């Protein structure tokens, strides 16, 4: 049996879930043994193989057209898609801006923020991704497994990776189920 290929990426999140992933410490070696770790934000390869991977893991909510692209690309190239952490699962902290609307949030950050001078303006370069309401991953593409947590506990991450590596679907319940 060939080792399952795993690829990860991050979107509108804080990268804390990936930090928590690194917190599985020496067990990373075990996962690296059991799987073929492909593109991740912390490896050199930046995009999941066009030929496809077995497991795609996405951190963060979907906040703009760029995130959408990342989500669709991962979905189209992986067999099992994992929503990794509260932002991917629910929208999380970035989604709180939905309460006031994107325009308001941008104005607050780029124009009204205390650290800005009076020249502050909202960036409008056409090259920039188009912003949207923040959405959970499953609102944009179908998701196979939700691993909530802010961030998910390293032990839960290890359990999930180990199960996936060995060809089983993890069951997130009881002491493994925490939304933050």
């Amino acid at each position, binding site marked *: 049996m060939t080792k399952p290929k795993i690829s990860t990426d991050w979107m509108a999140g804080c990268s804390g879930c990936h930090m928590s992933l690194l917190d599985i410490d020496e067990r990373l070696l075990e996962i690296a043994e059991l799987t073929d770790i492909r593109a991740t934000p912390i490896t050199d390869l930046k995009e999941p193989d066009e030929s496809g991977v077995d497991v795609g893991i996405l951190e963060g909510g979907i906040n703009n057209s760029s995130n959408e692209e990342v989500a669709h690309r991962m979905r189209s190239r992986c067999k099992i898609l994992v*929503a990794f952490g*509260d932002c991917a*699962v*629910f*929208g*999380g*902290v970035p*989604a*709180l801006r*939905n*309460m*006031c609307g994107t325009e308001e949030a941008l104005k607050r950050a780029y124009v009204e923020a205390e650290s800005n001078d009076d020249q502050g303006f909202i960036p409008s370069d056409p090259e920039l991704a188009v912003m949207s*309401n923040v*959405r*959970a991953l*499953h*609102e944009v593409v179908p*998701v196979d*497994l*939700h*691993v*909530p947590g*802010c961030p998910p506990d390293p032990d839960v991450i290890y359990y999930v990776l180990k199960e996936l590596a060995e060809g089983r679907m993890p069951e*997130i*319940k*009881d002491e493994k*189920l*925490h*939304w*933050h």
Partner: protein
Amino acid sequence: MVNLTINGKQIEVTEGTTVLNAARQNGIKIPTLCDHPHLTPYGGCRLCMVEIKGMRVPMAACTMPASNGMIVETDTPALKKSRNVVLSLLFSERNHFCPFCQVSGGDCELQNAAYDEEMTHWPMQPQWTNFPVDTSHPYFILDNNRCILCRRCIRACAEMSGNFTLGVEERGAATVVIADTNVPLGQSTCVSCGSCVQVCPTGALIDRQSTYLGHEKNLTVTRSICRGCSLGCGILVHTRDNHIVKITGDYENENAGTLCKTGRFLALNEQRTRLTTPLKRVAGQLTATSWDDALATLAEKFSASKDKVAAVASTRLSVEALSTFKSLFADGLQAKQITSVEEGRPTALQSMVADQLGEAIEGKLDTLRTADCVLLVGVDLTTTHEVAGFYIKRNLPKGTRLIIIDPNENGMDGLANINLKPRAGTDAAVFSAIEAVIVKEGLARSAVDENIVSLKSALAVCELNVQDVTDAARMLAEAVAPIIVYGKGLTASGNPGAMEALVRLANVIGASDSERKGLLSVKGESNSLAAALLGLVDQLEVKDEAVYVAVGDDFVSKRLASKLEKVPYLVVQASYESALTERADIVLPVNIWAEESGYVLNAEGRLQFASAAVTAPEGIRSNVDVLKDVARKLGVTVNDDWRAALTKRTSVVELEM
């Protein structure tokens, strides 16, 4: 009895039991959210839906009474799916993002319910509407964004405190919890009892004092008794690292979880400066000294002025401390004066009547629960003994009548059916006037004294209107279970005539007879009754005595401070700095209520043990220990048998100890 089957298990329950409670009694768990064991079932959240054979649709177990032959299923795949949908809808309604909520991580019933259903995500996303957050209240915050509209807070406000401040506005998904007519909570009729916070299943109502200081799992809970007043409500003291995080009502005590502002919030809002070391006046200045030196200095002084000693104790002290105090100063030192800070104002008069009659004249607090007419005399239950006021207020919508006799403005005036505002100090005449009407109209329930005062002369004294008095008399006479609740406004006068007239009135209206005692005084502080039983009820009159004041953690009244302003020698046993410690010659630092265990005897004679929840800073001693240390230095043996000391005289209410 009713027989039913739940999940294949044969169950027998009493008639009127809901399916939910039938399941609970038999260890079958049905998930709930809006249900609270101490509130009336509401049936709002739809999480407790069960399948009942023969019923077209699932039914809410919390409101469905069990009936004979019922066959109930609580855990079918269809019900699991339904619970998942119910929770999804709840999450989608508001902002239930957990990471920044204070109850997330164990204390949120909504989150726990989702975990129980193994929900890893919300199938429906929130609707992103902002709901109001009310931060105007000094003790808690209402965040409608976290509210699931279970109405527990609204039910608690009505059923626990009888205050009816909380309600809802709008309908459907736009529904929000509001105070009064949608005014900020801090400016509403809220009495800050905090029952709403205690029952809230989510983070919609969180109390400011304990927020983010730890989850329930991090806290140690000590079951104790509130020392705020003589009602002695049961409390749970939640502590962490020797720090009191919060106080909640004990559902298993008589108060069934209800507390007032004093018990729940004020006890943790201490602003006074703590005394941490014994102090001695040296060259006009209070200076820190050792316990040994402080005790030796005061012992020398008290030994020298033996016939000129007076002693005053706070009625907040434990029964043990009060008894030791009495034994030390009355029996040991034969002090010229020995009394309490209350000087018997809330207790002496009725104690005297009980003594004369040789039997208890008062009844128990639970008589209030069933009373259909309450006569309130000389006490404002919105400023003291608030929980007794809650017991009355919560029954008013059920038709319980309220008559108030109070020459002063009373916080409950607006709720009363009849307000009698007599001339101050004429209570006896008011009672006689009511009695006269009852007798004249032939409504008396007991043998009538021939020599009653005439209505006309009584009215002339109290200056009340004949119609009001007649209405009150008829209302009282018509009641099936009337009760008279009275307080310091009546007893502080020290007029035995008023008390006798009140006892007579209680008999005439049938409030008190051989089976039922519908007469109740709220008394004063925590151990007011115990102090009365120990005879600490005299008026304090001091001139040139050496005075020992055991204040404990009590507040020092202006009245007491001014009485002791000029005494030649003053020893103060206290937890906090006050006007008294400022002018004291010796100050002995002692524990506060939460730092020492001890018994309290509440207004209805129920003896309860209050357990220490935290330990005192080093160098501070317990009230009993300090009194015993003083006794040792003075060479006096104190009697430890406080139970015997309490039963030396007739109690105004039957003791349960």
